[in-house]
């Protein structure tokens, strides 16, 4: 790991941030379009050519909306919750590796930062993002927000364990916590095999827990709109709600990125080395579509089902997976 000049790091941060900031509305449109097609309808097709203006219209609508604070709310806490949510989501993006060092010439590494504790960094910021949901729900001073916040807390704490254990197998195989090292261990220089083959159990647990971590269907209990209006963001409007919303989609991208880096060989793929970011983005795209596909298909779990599934199924399977991986690696 080489430390790059500060200016290069700032430039990289801005590029990644802008890229993702622009991708999120497109994913939103893609999701609405695909959800429509999965349900035998068109989806948005009124704004602009075939609905391409829809993201712009959505963002403009959110920007022009009133900012509402209930009497029972704690205003400053309510204001910082969306900030925490989006900061943690974007910060996690920094460690998604888009390409190896020097793929585009020079010493430039195509990732935000290569921290030697990459996986831990991912968990740390993942846990911090729950704090935003908790704070937002609690500070809103509304019963639905509170219920949503409680649900997020319980759900995210339960699935955090499963997601951590599911990645441990990969960490054991790669012998490193850094995402760049993990990807390199899957290339020809390392084991030469994408980790989803030896770690198929870990991969499945990671994906299921990933759906729960991002609070998306079928684990969208924190914002179960049929029961608790919108959960933790019930009292939010305008761009504050937009921040929560965007953070959710950035988390989808992050989970996709981590899945690609840890299980699907990251930037490895045929073609010259400078194609690396294209490969990462293409693989992430497939995962984003998977997220949308599952959302179109599966109904929401009941709360006790969610808990018993997390504690009684996912965590034992993930633990067994880690034990077996460790035994196989040592023996």
């Amino acid at each position, binding site marked *: 790991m080489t430390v790059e000049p500060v200016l290069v790091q700032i430039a990289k941060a801005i590029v990644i941030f802008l890229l993702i900031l622009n991708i999120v509305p497109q994913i939103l449109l893609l999701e609405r379009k695909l959800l429509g097609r999965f*349900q*035998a309808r068109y989806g948005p097709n009124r704004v602009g050519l075939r609905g391409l203006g829809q993201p712009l219209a959505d963002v403009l609508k959110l920007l022009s909306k009133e900012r509402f604070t209930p009497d029972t709310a704690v205003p400053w806490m309510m204001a910082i919750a969306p900030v925490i949510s989006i900061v943690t989501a974007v910060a996690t993006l920094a460690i998604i590796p888009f390409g190896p060092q020097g793929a585009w010439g020079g010493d430039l590494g195509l990732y935000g930062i290569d921290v030697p504790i990459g996986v831990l960094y991912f968990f740390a910021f993942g846990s911090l993002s729950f704090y935003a949901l908790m704070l937002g729900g609690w500070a809103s001073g509304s019963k639905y927000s509170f219920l949503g916040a409680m649900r997020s807390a319980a759900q995210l704490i339960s699935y955090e364990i499963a997601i951590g254990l599911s990645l441990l197998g990969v960490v054991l195989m790669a012998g490193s916590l850094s995402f760049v090292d993990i990807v390199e261990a899957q290339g020809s220089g390392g084991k030469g095999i994408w980790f989803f083959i030896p770690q198929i159990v870990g991969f499945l647990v990671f994906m299921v827990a990933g759906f729960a971590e991002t609070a998306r269907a079928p684990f969208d209990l924190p914002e179960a709109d049929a029961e608790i209006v919108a959960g933790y963001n019930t009292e939010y409007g305008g761009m504050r709600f937009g921040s929560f919303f965007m953070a959710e989609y950035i988390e989808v991208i992050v989970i996709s990125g981590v899945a690609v880096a840890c299980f699907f060989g990251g930037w490895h793929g045929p073609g010259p080395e400078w194609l690396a970011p294209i490969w990462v983005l293409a693989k992430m795209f497939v995962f984003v579509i998977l997220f949308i596909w599952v959302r179109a*298909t599966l109904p929401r779990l009941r709360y006790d089902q969610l808990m018993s599934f997390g504690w009684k199924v996912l965590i034992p399977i993930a633990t067994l997976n880690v034990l077996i991986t460790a035994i196989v690696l040592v023996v």
Partner: protein
Amino acid sequence: MSYELTDDVIEVQRGPEPGGLGGAYRTFGATLRGLRTTFARLAEKPVTIQYPEEKTPVYPRFRGRHKLHRFEDTGLEKCVGCSLCVAACPAQCIRVVADENTPEHQVSAGERYAAVYEINMSRCIFCGYCEVACPFDAITMGNDYELADYERSDLIFTKEMLLAEPIERTPLRMEGE
């Protein structure tokens, strides 16, 4: 008391008990089948009818906006102002004021004609009783259902509006559609 398994008695087939390893296996299978079901929709054309551009076709007997008729050969109105439709109307939305035909001013084929014939479309329940009550088939129900307007007063249709050939905006359902 026991039953014979005849045609009257149905044996209830219960699904397997949920839970356990078998339950997990079946749930996994059901999840994959669900994913396949939604994925198959991608290949199909959406079933949406994009309303303002595409309209739902109606059946020939669909009861929409009324029409008043004239005799095709003489051009005289069929309505003789008998007010039977007024009597039949459960919503009381029709108003008829009859007047005598004179040789100089022959409007309808009978002795009298409807000097005023108004239907209040905001009250009409489209039951079609007026059509049934009419002895001369002077009023029939058309197919148009796009009757929304901005003013209540605009929804009172006069005789001229009902006599005029309506802009047929509603497609008719084809045979076997």
